[in-house]
């Protein structure tokens, strides 16, 4: 896979008098795992929310596979091939693990069907099973999602995002709140995912980011500070000054 998949052109976002993002121009190639890093308040989550349609930019243009996304409602982003996970675990807690993923799988096909029996749609069940298998939750099908461990809930959220077979997977701090063992499992999962699709990752654990990513984009105070290969980012004095010095101990 190669070529440009997503391009942000001069993206800006203002909340009243506060400028969260200013003139971000960056493009993401297909088939790469790219990480977006930056200190707290850098604008990473705002940028992520714009890329996933949860927020509309105040200025600039967003193109996915050459098609402009500005003006599309959030739910249409999944239909374009962009799917996401959240910084704070965001699942359907009172549904079973299988139903969490199956309901996400049907969003692209049979949303408003009131006649067929949802339990008898074998292709959707198979898709859900495959996504759960990919994240190692096939053994938990019938459990209510709220009873899973934190790490399993994070994995479930990735399965929810994965089941729509997105071309671009946006993962917002997938290891947030995880212990070392769970983080290790998640890193292994991310490596497997990155083999098959384009992944954009927001993470704070620098060792993990620099080890996993092919490319790193650094935001600071809502602006693009640096963009390059992990080694270039590691040796960039500006990045070290604003960010790395604070967090080298992580991960």
């Amino acid at each position: 896979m190669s070529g440009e998949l997503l391009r942000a052109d001069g993206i800006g976002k203002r909340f009243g008098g506060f400028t969260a993002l200013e003139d971000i121009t960056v493009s993401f190639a297909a088939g790469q795992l790219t990480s977006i890093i930056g200190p707290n308040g850098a604008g990473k989550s705002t940028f992520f929310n714009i890329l996933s349609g949860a927020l509309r930019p105040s200025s600039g243009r967003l193109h996915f596979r050459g098609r402009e996304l500005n003006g599309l409602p959030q739910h249409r982003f999944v239909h374009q091939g962009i799917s996401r996970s959240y910084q704070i675990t965001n699942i359907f807690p009172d549904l079973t693990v299988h139903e969490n993923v199956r309901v996400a799988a049907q969003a692209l096909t049979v949303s408003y069907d009131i006649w067929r029996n949802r339990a008898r749609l074998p292709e959707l069940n198979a898709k859900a099973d495959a996504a759960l298998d990919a994240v190692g939750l096939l053994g938990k099908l019938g459990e209510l999602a709220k009873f899973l461990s934190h790490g399993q809930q994070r994995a479930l959220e990735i399965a929810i995002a994965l089941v729509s077979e997105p071309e671009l997977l946006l993962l917002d701090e997938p290891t947030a709140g995880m212990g070392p063992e769970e983080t290790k499992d998640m890193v292994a999962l991310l490596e497997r995912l990155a083999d098959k699709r384009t992944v954009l990752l927001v993470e704070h654990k620098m060792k993990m980011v620099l080890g996993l990513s092919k490319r790193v984009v650094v935001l600071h105070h809502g602006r693009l500070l640096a963009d390059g290969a992990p080694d270039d980012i590691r040796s960039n004095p500006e990045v070290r000054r604003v960010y790395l010095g604070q967090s080298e101990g992580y991960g």
Partner: protein
Amino acid sequence: MTSPSSGEAVAKPASGSLSWLLEQRVLMSVAVLAVLPWLLPSQALAVNVLIYGVVVMGYNLLFGYTGLLSFGQAAFFGAGAYFTGIAIGRYGVPWFLAVAIAVLLSTCLAAAIGIVSTRTRGIYFAMVTLALAQLVYYVALQASSFTGGENGLRGFTVDRISLFGLSVNFLDPVNKYYVLMALAALAMWFQSRILNSPFGAVIEAIRENEQRARACGYNVERSKLIVFMLSGAISSLGGCMLALHLSIVPLDILHYQTSGMIVMMVLLGGARSFFGPFVGAATFLILEDVISVWTPHWQIFVGAIFVLFVLFLPKGIWGTLLDTLGIGKARR
């Protein structure tokens, strides 16, 4: 079942004939309703349980399954009753066609109210539905040449029910009960269909996590509007049943107190449970029946009992019973 990991395996009951019976929620519900006149102190009470059970069941789709707390369900209950009465009394439409027209027009009313209200959330949604339902109440009050105003709608009586070559005396209480039960069974079948369908999964997802549902690719606003219309359609059928039963439509049916009563019934019986609305309707109506013999201020006692239920049995009578018996969500 093609593999041990398929969704069918998840939904499949554990084992045994009891589990299979519980899975047949429409059949089981109809079986209970069929003997209800012999379980309750009066036939009239049983008919009211049927009617309010259907109204509350429609509301349960909105509140219990989708998580949208509306205070305006009386609008659709009343609309179903008024449209049925007007169609029969003013235009001489046959009863079954009058019911079909009434449900259709009430669904259109639900669409109009839903377009405005489903764009709001939480308390704002509750208040907008309350305000718009009160608007319907005042329209019915003012349009007295059509609705009879504060005297209610009169002048239509269905004494025989004829369909597919069968004709029964509708003034006979037993016949009346079973004809209305057939309509209730139709409503239950329809609601069960919705709950089992892919769209049933969508509304559950919206109830569980609206943000996640939207991120999964669902048009949440459109889904809410659809469920609002379906809920209104089912509750309006209860209104049609009331009109056929009473041969009058009291104006109070549209009042916000009726909406409040519907909310109480669903909570008493158990929101999110299939048969809970009938249990809630029966509980409320029996309490009203029994306590009003002792005192005209029966609402004080029913209100106190309701508060106790909310505090100690938040899943309602039926929901708590199913939990106690360990019966899963799929069989409710």
